[in-house]
């Protein structure tokens, strides 16, 4: 997309994510051509939608679309295919292959409960190849998760199926590549949520009068907000750079950093919004909840960061420096 097309696309996606949720958002995104954009220009489609979705506290089925597409699943507009995600904190395949049985323990997005088909990736012993199965809805057991962020519509997915139903997954567009795209998507969603939290805190600081002046005039408050902007912009910059070479390593680094940055913003915004932000009458709590969950989906920030450090120690070298 050129700059003008991108601006129009962003405006349309912003309108859709601000007005719609769930299935209605799914339909709105289909109407505005998001699925086509995902195939033609994944960087723009993913970064724009997920940042808007994070900013608007919206839920869609887009993460499933991104993962299914990356796993090479043929797109069928008539049937929603949900993808089983790893359990919290993890990013390995959610299915475990053991002889002729494949057991599954993972999570699903809001798409899972509405899906006609379910896509599961499984692995035998660590390091062996991945397999993928398309299962009919109902094969696996779903348990609605309310938890910290009920609006997200997560489900816990458990069960088992015959290994014969699964086919080998070509490693070229395999699980790790799909996870990388999913991590970039979640990274952008975290940045979107962080931008909104900063915005909410900023508006409050400008409007809230204490000691006869807006609290935005107090340096302690200003510096929290400034620190938040540094966190947001540096996470957004690392994500944008990761799209130049969206490898598992760059995506994991960008997602891990985005998670930590968003949590930093959540902490500062919560403090600046103080009592008001602690009430359910103010929207901040929804973004704080969402941030914590997104940080732990498809690899928790803390896990990805430690893994990065271990890999540097193991290989004795840093990731290739971004070229000028």
């Amino acid at each position: 997309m050129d700059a003008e097309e991108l601006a129009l696309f962003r405006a349309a996606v912003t309108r859709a994510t601000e007005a719609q949720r769930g299935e209605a958002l799914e339909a709105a995104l289909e109407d505005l051509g998001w699925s086509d954009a995902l195939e033609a220009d994944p960087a723009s489609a993913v970064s724009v939608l997920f940042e808007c979705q994070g900013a608007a506290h919206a839920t869609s089925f887009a993460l499933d679309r991104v993962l299914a597409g990356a796993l090479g699943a043929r797109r069928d507009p008539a049937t929603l295919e949900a993808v089983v995600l790893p359990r919290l904190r993890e990013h390995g395949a959610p299915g475990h292959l053991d002889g002729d049985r494949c057991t599954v323990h993972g999570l699903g997005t809001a798409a899972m409960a509405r899906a006609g088909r379910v896509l599961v990736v499984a692995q035998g012993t660590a390091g062996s190849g991945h397999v993928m199965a398309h299962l009919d809805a109902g094969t696996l057991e779903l348990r609605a998760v309310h938890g910290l962020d009920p609006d997200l519509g997560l489900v816990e997915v458990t069960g088992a199926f015959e290994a014969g139903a699964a086919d080998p997954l070509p490693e070229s567009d395999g699980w790790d590549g799909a996870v990388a795209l999913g991590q970039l998507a979640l990274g952008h969603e975290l940045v979107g949520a962080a931008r909104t939290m900063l915005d909410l805190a900023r508006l409050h600081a400008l409007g809230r009068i204490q000691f006869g002046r807006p609290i935005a005039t107090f340096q302690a408050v200003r510096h929290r907000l400034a620190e938040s902007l540094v966190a947001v912009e540096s996470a957004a910059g690392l994500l944008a750079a990761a799209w130049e070479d969206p490898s598992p390593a760059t995506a994991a680094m960008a997602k891990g950093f985005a998670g930590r940055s968003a949590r930093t913003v959540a902490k500062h915004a919560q403090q600046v919004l103080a009592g008001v932000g602690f009430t359910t009458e103010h929207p901040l709590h929804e973004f704080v909840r969402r941030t914590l969950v997104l940080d732990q989906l498809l690899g928790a920030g803390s896990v990805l960061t430690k893994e990065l450090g271990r890999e540097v120690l193991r290989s004795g070298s840093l990731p290739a420096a971004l070229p000028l």
Partner: protein
Amino acid sequence: MEFAAFKTAVDAWLDAQAGELAPDYAGIGSLDEQMLQLRKVFRLAYDAGFMRMGWPERVGGLGGSNLLRAYLGEALVARDVVEPGIYSMPEVLVPTLIDFAPPELAADMVPRLLSGAENWCQGFSEPGTGSNLGSLACRAEHTDAGWLVNGQKVWTSLAQYATRCVLLTRTGTPESAHRGITALFVDMDTPGITVRPIGAMHGAAEFCEVFYDDVLVPHDRLLGEVNGGWSIAMDLLPYERSTALWFRAAYMQRRLERLVAIAPEGALDPGALGEAVQLLSAFRARSRHTGRRLAAGEKIGAETSVDKVLLATAEQAVFELVAEGLGTEVLLGDDPHSRRWRAEYLYSRAASIYGGSGEIQRNIIARRLLDLGDER
């Protein structure tokens, strides 16, 4: 020359000249040795034409974008040929000459700096004027013979080596604040200038006190307009936070690589190491974005305060790891390499102080980028 061709040419030259370019000391060297090395590298790179790339032809350059300068500095730093701080001298001072000096003065002077014939310094801060530049007091009075300067500067980096100084002076009333400041280009051998280097925690006396007693500066050494010095300072500061910071990214990358290579087994915490690598990568992405905006002719300004905060955070994270992982070297070592690690660790403490402290950067971000209004 386009960027890819420049890069290839620089790399080939660095390979061919590796022996001649290398410092003739181990570790970090003394400040005298570093300055000699710096001038040697400037001279070699200038003679090869590379040091002139990225600067306009009217000041002796060969044209091309700032990204050419960014790559040359990155490549020199990544090969441990120069120290990034002192190498940044042209980045900080040449844009001022280009934008504000009389054209013939700029054309005469800039090649002297780029060719390594001279070192320059920047006289901004004063004992009573650190972050609050608008309060500076060093006076310049207009006389028939020239500007008569009286006062004191401090934190003037490398003044003891400098031939010239971009000096900010008070020409308005003391209350005129940022409206009454004038910039002069001063020869450091003018009678009445006394330089006193100040010992610093990291072991190199690179900051100085500079005293000006009845120092006469010719009228044709005026930079910009009388009482227009504030806009010069404002114009310069974003340069200080663009290409110059990019060099530090290359430096941090190199030192972190070295740390990982030599730290004893188990001495580095994987989580802290992962965070440092993330911060360094995020800083590099940010700084490159700024460099590209500059290359595209965009006006850069307050956004570079984000770059500076991120740099300080990354550099301190990297050298916290150094202090952890190379405790023996940093705390106990007396060989040249240990002294280098120790000096670098200590210097990283200043990353959130020099060039506009972390607090000032956050004030700028709050007022200019978040539009939070004035502080009172």
